[in-house]
């Protein structure tokens, strides 16, 4: 099985080497792709040095640019599974291995790691907690399926989803929107419980202003998504 683990990174020199090493340990056969947002620190060098493939896309295009690039890379290079995790060391590579297994076994087309499915040990700031609860409620309502962690950055998808996302160029990727779009397209989107560490090194690119913007953009796009025409899976070619 041809698996690609994509790790979007921006100025994560403190954690990127460890993250890559952990993925290697738990997923020895997977290819690793770091999507670097033109970091101003040594992220690019360290990731290259650790043996990962590195594609650079300006951070102006935020996480959407990085994740969409990973989808294109996976699509064009014939990967059968695309998995994604964060570069800040908060996600466990062994959780990612379980998420990938959920996709490989056919249990889900899209498996999303949820911090809240089993425990709620991960502590968040109030603003984040409100945003996460709001999105979870909204997405559950729209899809008619229970989702607990719609902003999760740890997930895996199969080849059909890779093709679907890679071919839709106009799709401005966001985690929340992706769940709704992929669910409506007919893909089986399911959550897998994961645990998450608190960030130990580096700083989050998520400032308060950005958080509000993220919530605003997410709410608008998800609510309008209901009024958009669905492109069913398999119609992209």
């Amino acid at each position, binding site marked *: 099985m041809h698996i690609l683990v994509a790790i979007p990174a921006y100025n994560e020199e403190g954690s990127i080497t460890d993250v890559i090493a952990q993925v290697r340990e738990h997923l020895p056969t997977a290819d690793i792709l770091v999507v670097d947002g033109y970091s101003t620190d040594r992220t690019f060098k360290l990731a290259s040095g650790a043996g990962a493939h590195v594609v*650079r896309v300006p951070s102006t295009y935020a996480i959407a640019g990085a994740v969409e690039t990973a989808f294109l890379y996976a699509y064009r290079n014939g990967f059968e599974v695309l998995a994604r995790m964060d570069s800040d060391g908060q996600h466990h590579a062994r959780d990612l291995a379980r998420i990938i297994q959920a996709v490989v076994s056919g249990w889900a087309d899209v498996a999303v790691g949820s911090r809240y499915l089993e425990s709620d040990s991960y502590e968040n700031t109030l603003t984040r907690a409100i945003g996460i609860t709001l999105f979870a409620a909204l997405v559950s309502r729209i899809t008619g399926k229970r989702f607990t962690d719609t902003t999760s950055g740890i997930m895996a998808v199969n080849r059909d989803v890779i093709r679907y996302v890679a071919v839709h*160029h106009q799709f401005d990727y966001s985690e929340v929107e992706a769940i709704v779009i992929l669910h409506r397209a007919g893909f089986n989107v399911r959550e897998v419980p994961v645990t998450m560490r608190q960030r130990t090194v580096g700083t989050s690119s998520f400032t308060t202003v950005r958080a509000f913007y993220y919530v605003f953009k997410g709410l608008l796009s998800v609510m309008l998504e209901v009024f958009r025409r669905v492109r069913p899976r398999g119609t992209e070619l």
Partner: protein
Amino acid sequence: MTPRQQLIWGLGAIVLLVMVLELVRRRRLREEHTVFWLLTCAVLLSLAIWRRALNVVAQIVGTTLPLSALFGVGFFLVLLIMLHFSTVVSSLWQQSKQMAKEIGLLEEALRELKHEIHGGTPSSAKGHAGDADPDPESSLRN
């Protein structure tokens, strides 16, 4: 509306029209983006010349002053122009993002290829990435 007001509005519309056409002539404005500008000029000019039409518009929007009707129409047209250019900006954003993704993928493919040519497998060759460090002054950097 007094003849003087008509003259000023009419002249204003003509000046705007000439400016738009001149920009197109110099290829500083694409024909595609002139639609709303030309529409605005045409509407303002006709309403400035054709008094009865302006009175009808004033009645429809419920004002006794034809001049405020003209302002209202002009303002609405400007909003349309701004909305139009917002869509242009959004589509430019999508296009530039698409290009950035393609350039990123090409750059990676090129780096792997160079490593292959200089010997060693691409991923192991990444170990000595010193010479692969792309131009730090790259125009893509933010």
